[in-house]
């Protein structure tokens, strides 16, 4: 049975594991916009998790400002959205995250990404451009495809706050609860 679980972990992503990693990162505020890619596996469970304050924003770049301000208060935040919202927030991320050098931590669902296919090899133009844009901006990024990648989350958030730099965590697999 343990062997089956181990195999399963290499192919699926569980929202509860992501939530554990977010909690372990010291994050307490979650500005968010729903994303069908992460809706049931991640955002909905987060709504009933103690210790997190969800801030439902109308547009994703609001979350960039909110995260920035919270960082001055020594409060950790994670902006949860879809990658389209990340693309829509580029200018705010450019000045507030990159030019001001602030720890803007983002988690963006890669809706419609093909399982197991790296984003830049997706058949979807909109997904292929995400990582190159982040690289052009000098924004650190990590793809979280399966449970095996969840271990990247806490160190990435920790590094963002230690170095005061933004980071994007790109949710490739659609998380199960």
């Amino acid at each position: 049975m343990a062997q089956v679980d181990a195999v399963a972990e290499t192919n699926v992503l569980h929202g509860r594991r992501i939530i554990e990693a977010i909690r372990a990162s010291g994050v307490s505020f979650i500005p968010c916009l729903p994303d069908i890619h992460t809706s049931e596996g991640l955002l909905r469970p987060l709504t009933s998790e103690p210790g997190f304050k969800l801030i439902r924003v109308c547009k994703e770049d609001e979350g960039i400002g909110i995260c920035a301000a919270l960082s001055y208060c020594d409060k950790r935040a994670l902006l949860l959205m879809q990658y389209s919202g990340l693309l829509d927030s580029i200018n705010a991320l450019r000045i507030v995250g990159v030019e001001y050098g602030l720890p803007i931590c983002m988690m963006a669902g890669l809706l419609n990404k093909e399982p197991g296919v790296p984003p830049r090899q997706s058949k979807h133009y909109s997904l292929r451009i995400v990582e190159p844009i982040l690289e052009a901006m000098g924004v650190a990024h990590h793809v979280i495809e399966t449970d095996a990648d969840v271990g990247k989350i806490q160190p990435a958030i920790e590094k963002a706050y230690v170095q005061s730099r933004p980071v994007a965590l790109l949710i490739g697999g659609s998380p199960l609860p």
Partner: protein
Amino acid sequence: MTMRRDEALRVLARHVGDDIVVPVFTTAFDWIAIRKHPLNYIMVGAMGLGSSHALGLALGRPDKRVIVLDGDGSLLMNLGSLVTIGDAAPKNLVHFVVENGTYEANGSHPIPGRGRVDFPELAMAAGYRAAAAFSDLAAFDKDVAAFLAQPGPVFATLQVEPGPSPDFDYGHMHGPAVRQAFKAALQASR
């Protein structure tokens, strides 16, 4: 009737102690000349985000009053933030919009809906607890203390004409010194 922006800000400054103040763009340059204090948060970056930064500060430091001095053009770029703030409902947030009907920092072109948009009505519809409009300096001077004493989020427009042109020092606004000074002052204010 309108007020001069710098005169309205001088009236407000008399009522601002160790509050965090988030002034944006042209108002920011007027404000930092009037109220020299490290808890001025002028580094909002992109136009329109002032109210969102203010929300983050209000939630992150519920022990401090946060006053945002937004612009009408700026708020139009982030109008949804009214709803976000109304939903989050921080009691320590005061939202002023310095309303001059123009994008003053970008050539003073008119904002869309100039003279027709009712910002206080929008704020009330979005869930703010109270909203007001001030266009007379004497009335603002008389009523501002009571306005600020209400639990937030509260909203008011300051209907102004430009005063003397401030010193547009964008290097200072976006430079690291103000960010470092703000962070140190905020940490020291616990």
